[in-house]
């Protein structure tokens, strides 16, 4: 499919630009354009201490966001691609300006210049890293923080209470292992109609996954089981259809594992098994038990901080059983086990292929709002509506959203098929048709034809209800698109 959609929206923006009455409107239009053409904005959200900054660092493969045992992130911080590293501060009052920063302890410490965090709207960090090419990541302060205004700031980024367009296009929602109350909580972000909170743009991450299983060696398997149960839960499913267990700390450390760290772990692994078991019994013991090992207490504390108790236990186990024999093998193994790779793959599948649509969706929403408030050519508003109503991509998303929120009810197998067809688990033709990735074009064609006739029959069947008919028509059109493309 060609990018007619973006082009059409860009045309509207251009037109509006010419008739824009004020500078402010013009700059807002610029912003919308930037949004449409720039990378997808992904916000990382969740309760306090869910591990948002840690996950962000893991995704960037670099320690940028400061992390701490206590509550740490207090300001919404954007991380985007730029040629040179810089930190720009956007105060609540006054002009944005660059601020010096410090990077002693690894993470960026931006000097706020005497401003309290409460006076800062947000920070923007430009950073030259390829990982930010397709994605601008927003780190947010935790929800349910003790200081209420910190939580309120996150709400502004994610929710669109006052009819404003949310800043983020997509959300990575970090759940710690909790209960249905979290679901209720998530729902509050998703209640709005149209672009803001469709389940299309949320991925659930079961963060700090190792802790669910009390850092035992099978913790990640336990977490996987929990995540699967969550996915199956209908209420949660329509909010974030995909839930991935991730151990952010382990993932981050794995990608940045140093040779010296491997050496320390290997030294511990070589100790007698009884001694190792005793040492790894608790975090306290690990850092403070004096032992004959060549690894000092201080070094062990460093390891614990880097890997967490689970990470240390796992690494030692991997080295001891010979699964990992050098630092790069260990790094690979740990990254794999941390769930980070899977999360990355899902990000690509869920967002990057769909990012164009998501961005367009956000842009249309922003544009609608702007046009409604300002004085523009009357025809423009109609044009935007036309785009919004006509674009098949939007129809797909809306239907998918309806399907997941129970707005359209079909038989379970049809629902499942339709969900896949609409791109619920990936936009590639094979994914849409539920074929293996290596299916030949011919297979795809065959499958599409079969599905097409099935949906066509369904759409025209006299006993099909009206909503189902409409859904079937969208499906037909998608299939036609697949066959034509």
């Amino acid at each position, binding site marked *: 499919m060609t990018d007619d959609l973006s082009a059409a929206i860009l045309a509207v923006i251009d037109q509006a630009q010419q008739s824009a009455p004020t500078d402010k409107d013009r700059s807002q239009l610029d912003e919308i354009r930037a949004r449409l053409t720039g990378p997808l904005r992904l916000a990382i959200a969740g*309760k*306090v*201490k869910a591990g948002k900054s840690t996950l962000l660092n893991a995704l960037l493969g670099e320690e940028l966001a400061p992390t701490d*045992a*206590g*509550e740490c992130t207090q300001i919404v911080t954007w991380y985007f691609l730029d040629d040179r590293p810089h930190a720009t501060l956007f105060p609540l009052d006054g002009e944005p300006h660059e601020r010096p920063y410090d990077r002693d302890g690894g993470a960026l410490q931006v000097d706020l210049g005497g401003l309290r965090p409460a006076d800062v709207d947000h920070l923007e960090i430009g950073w030259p890293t390829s990982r930010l090419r397709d994605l601008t990541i927003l780190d947010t302060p935790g929800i*349910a*923080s*003790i*200081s*209420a205004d910190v*939580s309120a700031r996150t709400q502004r980024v994610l929710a669109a209470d006052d009819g404003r367009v949310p800043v983020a296009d997509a959300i990575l929602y970090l759940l*710690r*292992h*909790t*209960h249905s*109350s979290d679901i*209720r909580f998530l*729902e*509050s972000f998703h*209640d709005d*109609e149209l672009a803001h909170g469709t389940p299309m743009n949320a991925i659930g991450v079961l963060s*700090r996954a190792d*802790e*669910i*299983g*009390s*850092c035992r060696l099978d913790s990640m398997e*336990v977490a996987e*089981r*929990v995540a699967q*149960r969550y996915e199956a839960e209908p209420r949660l499913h329509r909010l974030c259809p995909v839930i991935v267990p991730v151990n952010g700390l382990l993932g981050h450390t794995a990608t940045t594992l140093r040779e010296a760290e491997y050496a320390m772990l290997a030294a511990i692994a070589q100790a007698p098994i009884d001694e190792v078991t005793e040492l790894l*019994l*608790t*975090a*306290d*013991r*690990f*850092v403070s038990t004096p032992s004959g090992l060549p690894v000092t207490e201080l070094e062990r*504390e460093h390891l*614990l*901080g880097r890997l967490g*108790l689970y990470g240390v236990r796992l690494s030692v186990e991997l080295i001891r059983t010979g699964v990992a024999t050098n630092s790069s093998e260990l790094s690979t193994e740990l990254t794999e086990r941390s769930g980070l790779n899977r999360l990355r793959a899902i990000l690509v599948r869920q967002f990057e292929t769909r990012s164009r649509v998501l961005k367009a969706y956000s842009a249309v929403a922003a544009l609608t709002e702007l046009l409604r408030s300002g004085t523009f050519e009357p025809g423009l508003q109609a044009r935007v509506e036309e785009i919004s109503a006509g674009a098949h991509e939007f129809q797909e998303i809306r239907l998918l959203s309806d399907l997941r929120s*129970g*707005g*359209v009810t079909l038989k379970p197998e049809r629902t499942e098929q339709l969900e896949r067809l609409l791109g619920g688990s990936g936009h590639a033709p094979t994914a849409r048709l539920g074929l293996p990735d290596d299916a030949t074009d011919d297979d795809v064609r065959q499958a599409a034809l079969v599905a097409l006739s099935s949906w066509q029959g369904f759409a025209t069947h006299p006993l099909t209800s*009206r*909503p189902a008919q409409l859904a079937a028509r969208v499906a037909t059109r998608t299939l036609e698109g697949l066959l034509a493309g």
Partner: protein
Amino acid sequence: MINCDNCGRANDDSAIFCTSCNTYLAWSTEKPAPTEPATPADPEPPSPEPEPLVPKPEPPSPEPQPPAAQPEPLAPEPLTPDSLAPEPLAPEPVPVRPDPAVPQPEPLAPEPIPPVPDPAIPEPQPPVPTPPPSPAPEPKPAPRPRTSVSQLISAIDQGRTLTQDRQRPDLTARLETAKKKLDSRTVTAVVVGEFKRGKSTLVNALLQTAVCPVDADIVTAVPTLVRYGEQPGLTAYRQTDPSQPPVGYPAPLSQIAQLVSESPDPDEQGRLQSVTVEVPHRMLRSGLSLLDTPGVGGLDSVHGQLTLAALASADAILFVTDAAQELTGPELEFLKTAISRCPAAALVITKTDLYGHWRRIVELNQAHLAKAGIDLPIFPVSSFLRLRAAQRPELNQESGFAPLVEFLATAVVVPGTTRAAATVAQEVDFVAGQLAQQSDAERVVLTKPQSRPEVLSKLARVRDQAAGLTAASATWQQTLSDGIADLVADVEHDLQSRLRTVMRDVETIIDQGDPTETWTDTEVWLRRQVAVVGVANRDLLIERARELGERVAEAFDLEAGTEVEVELSQFSADLDQLELASAASLSMPGGRLQSLMMAGRTGIFVPMIAFSIVSALITPVVAVGIAATLGAGIGGKLLKDERKRQRTYRQQQAKAAVRRYIDEVAFVMNKDTRDSLRKTQRQLRDDFQERAGLIHRSATAALTAADRTAKLAPAEQSARAAELAAETERLRAMRTNLRELALAGGRPAGSPDAGRSSGGRAGGGR
């Protein structure tokens, strides 16, 4: 000598913790004997007792007394009481007051009686093979203060001898009831906290037994009460009919996991109200019971409100958070509200074994608490280590459980027991008062023969007054029946007005939006609001019922006349308050859980109803919503009107559903109000009636005795006078003791909230 239960090491008498495994020695007891508490035997078991109340004996340092220093072999000591101990020895807390007053041979207690290091009284050593040379060689056996409970038991037994002498089986029965009440006292510690913080694991770790099911995934969904029982057992309380109280069904212990875990079937879950587990665990023998609750989910959740309601009848809160993170906003908020409803509280930080930075978290939480103006002890613990400590005792110290266990012993069990003892003391004092009246009358007759007519007429008057008390026309009877009627009206009105406010708010909310979109939120909001209303209403009920109890007691007191030495004044008012408490919260199956169930019934009932509303309402709403989209082809104006019409229709549907729901809630809650008040009324009436009967009989007996004494020969008179003097002295000493015990209950040690006194456990509510 205290023998550690855990490792068998004999420890110094004053040791708090076992020197070898660091088990808290208060819990160490001898093997439970199978006999019932009723039969007292005579030997005095050495008590494994710490002195918790005395200026805290630096807890973490176990007495480094080496076992070698013990003059005797380790073994014989525990055997002695074993064979004869009539009773499981509960770790009774020790009140501060040493009590040299009663040199009685100790009657036997279900409580561990101090090892009597008093050299003055040669201890009646039981006929055991090789009695050890007694703990006397211990260098510094300071006279151990007697426990409030053992004091009480001895008072009760003394009283029983007297009542039997005087042939007053009614008073004897009264004492027996008091004793039973004392034996069955409970001290409930509620374990609350967010989901998955390790509440169930904490309970297991405290008991070092896998009682509550623990799973990485599944959460506790039903309140689980763990208490003492000779035989392990499990009772599930289910509610099949919303208008009936839950009924308990015994179930095999192996089923606990299914019962307690979150059930996918909401119906089933709604029906199951609570689960009670009985385990023969030494730590629970003191009457301590642990209530494991479902995760709170913040103050504004339905569960949170229900937990708050449960706290009203609890003796302590253990608020559980974990070392993974500092306290969150909702947690702190909940904690603030919770501690105001409970006499003792502590913050427990679990999972310290998993996080190297747990000390930081403790500091951060300390700072948060300080900033919020909350003064709480904080206990960082590792349940993981504690559970392992069963096999490897040396891990106990590391687990951090020792201070927590000590907190439970000193700050929870002691005040709780003191409160329980206080109520019983008042009861026993009442009986003693009755006995004293007769002795007094006789003495007056003997010592001042000239005032005899006066005394006799006074006694006759008392008798007549007491007779009047039993009549249905007695003022207290009126006060009671009027009061109950008023109460019902007031509580129902309160509920109605609160629900009306909710209804109005809901209607505003519904009017503001389209129910298709807002219904989910509205429904959640509504449920929460109704839960809040329910809890507030129950609080009012309990508070007002308590007031009524006081008023009735006052009326009874006035009517009984001040000359009568009934002593219904100060203490008894408190006492009646407690009687009421038992009526309101103890009379139902599930015991102390009753008030939880009361709230739980409405609360857990709420989601059930809400579910049916959802299914009843959502379907039409959605259908209508789709229909509107279909009309997209129709002209603008027409569509707008149609949409508006449909929206209004949906709003009406939603309002009707809300109204039905609120009606249902009001119906159920009002029924509940009436039921519990009726029960309260009956209980109060019976109790006062019985009292009136006792007073009447006492007065009659006193009159007869005075008459008889007056007619005695002079020689017999003087003998009788001496007898009476001794008896009076005994009674006086006994009553002084009892008063002190009763007063001790009024000022729980360590609790700033002295005013709550025994009433605190009654309703606690405001």
